[in-house]
């Protein structure tokens, strides 16, 4: 949309403008009624996401991972600290539509057909009907729902609805994709298939992704880096780089690879705050 973004995957070049997301010293305190019972959802968060990078936020419930995503999306404002998206403030980035977002619930409009749901952002921003139609057809192919454009959401399965929501998030080819547990409500088989699809889609679109999840294998399978968070107050416990290859190399076989299990163990240890002792990691190393 704007020309100030760098080409995706262009390394970790310094300078705030080239980062997809840059979070410095962000906290979010929820104040109860009359100032009582304040809850510190996030405290002192620093995080940088490079263009084209896939970063997962993982942690137990109440660790503020969804809150952090909402702050990036400017659906909520931080109490302190600063969030920059491609060098812009979160609000400016939202108004400029720098990101696409998918929620835990697909959040489709039930009175609109699948195609009309996908083209919603394009329609809101005044794209002409012919262009919208072409782009919608493209997106339907991308998420593997080529024949379903004229169906209505209530005629689709949960997994298909979630694919429609992802297609909608990708409608304007954003350089940043925000996903809040998008596969949380799906069964395990559908979930793994959707993860494979997402890896493929990310490879094709080259967008940076911030992905909230509470599934360790999901985070490891999808991400370049896994950000492990701890609750009350929400803090970053540790950041684990996952060197499992580019999206093109991540296939079904990866789920059986040793590197995958090692990374899963490391994330688990970070989550539970246990020291990385050799004896403690026997479970996955069959």
């Amino acid at each position, binding site marked *: 949309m704007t020309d100030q973004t760098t080409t995706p995957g262009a390394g970790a070049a310094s300078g705030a403008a080239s980062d997809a997301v840059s979070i410095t010293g962000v906290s979010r305190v929820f104040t109860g009624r009359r100032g009582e019972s304040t809850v510190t959802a996030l405290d002192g968060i620093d995080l940088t996401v490079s263009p084209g990078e896939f970063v997962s936020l993982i942690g137990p419930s109440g660790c503020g991972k969804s809150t952090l995503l909402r702050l990036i*999306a400017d*659906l909520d404002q931080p109490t302190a600290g600063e969030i920059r998206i491609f060098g812009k403030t979160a609000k400016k980035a939202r108004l400029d*539509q720098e990101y696409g977002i998918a*929620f835990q619930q697909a*959040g489709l*409009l*039930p009175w609109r057909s699948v195609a009309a749901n996908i083209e919603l952002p394009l329609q*809101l921003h005044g794209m002409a009907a012919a262009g919208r139609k072409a782009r919608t057809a493209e997106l339907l192919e991308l998420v593997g729902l080529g024949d379903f454009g004229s169906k209505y959401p209530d005629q689709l399965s949960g997994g298909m609805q979630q694919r429609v929501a992802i297609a909608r998030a990708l409608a304007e080819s954003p350089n940043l994709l925000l996903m809040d547990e998008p596969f949380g409500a799906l069964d395990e088989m559908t979930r793994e298939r959707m993860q494979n699809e997402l890896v493929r889609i990310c490879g094709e679109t080259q967008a940076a992704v911030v992905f909230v999840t509470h599934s360790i294998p999901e985070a490891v399978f999808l991400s370049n880096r896994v950000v492990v968070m701890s609750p009350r107050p929400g803090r970053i416990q540790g950041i684990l780089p996952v060197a499992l290859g580019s999206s093109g190399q991540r296939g079904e076989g990866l789920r059986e690879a040793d590197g995958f299990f090692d990374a899963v163990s490391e994330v688990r240890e970070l989550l539970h705050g246990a020291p990385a002792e050799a004896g403690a990691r026997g479970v996955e190393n069959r």
Partner: protein
Amino acid sequence: MRPQIGSARAVAAPLILGIGALLIWQLTVMALDIKPFVLPSPVSIFTQFIDNVPTVWAASVVTGTNALIGLIVGGIVGVVSAVIAALLPIIDELSAGLVAALSVIPIVALAPVLYTMFGAAEETARQIVAAIAVFVPVYLNSLRGLRQVRPVHRDLMRATAATPWQATRVVTLPTATPFVFTGLRIASSLAVISALIAEYFGGPVGGLGKSITSAASSSNYALAWAYVLGSIILGLLFYSATLALEKLASRHRPSA
């Protein structure tokens, strides 16, 4: 096959009950020799109805037109007011008492006053009475519907940087639509009833209400009942039409 049997039964059961009730009515009138001014028999009412189809039809058109104009005007005003009240909470708070008052006062009681205001030769007073009767349920249901927007849809509108008007048009109004039509369905019978009762208080002749009173006062009781039958059919027609609209508006919703 089973659902078809079920729906056939659903139609047949009330039909049999209705025919049975009419049969008992007819037999009671004949056996007890009840005078027509007390209760005419169904057969005599139906005979009067068939003999006077053109006049009953003409009267139904007059009353039906008043009810329809009232339904449309009251419906539009109700929906527009609800949208304004939903957008500006202050309006909602200011008008809550007024709406409560409107829903409590017997609206047809306004008819004599309105006849004086708009002239006894005009249908306007009846249409206004119908419109006010329609306004209350449409306004209350629409306002409720406008508040049903799911949080995820609100987030979506914000995330896509939609303007308030776009959010209203794309999410809020479609969310409220089934509720609006529920309000209209409730209001449809009220529109017919109000337009008809308003005729009792004066105004031009020709409608169903006036026809019922004039037939009764000239001792033609079966004919008066034939007009009542006409009003029942008119009310059912309004109800079915708005029910069909309601079904159409909520066909892709799992609930509501």
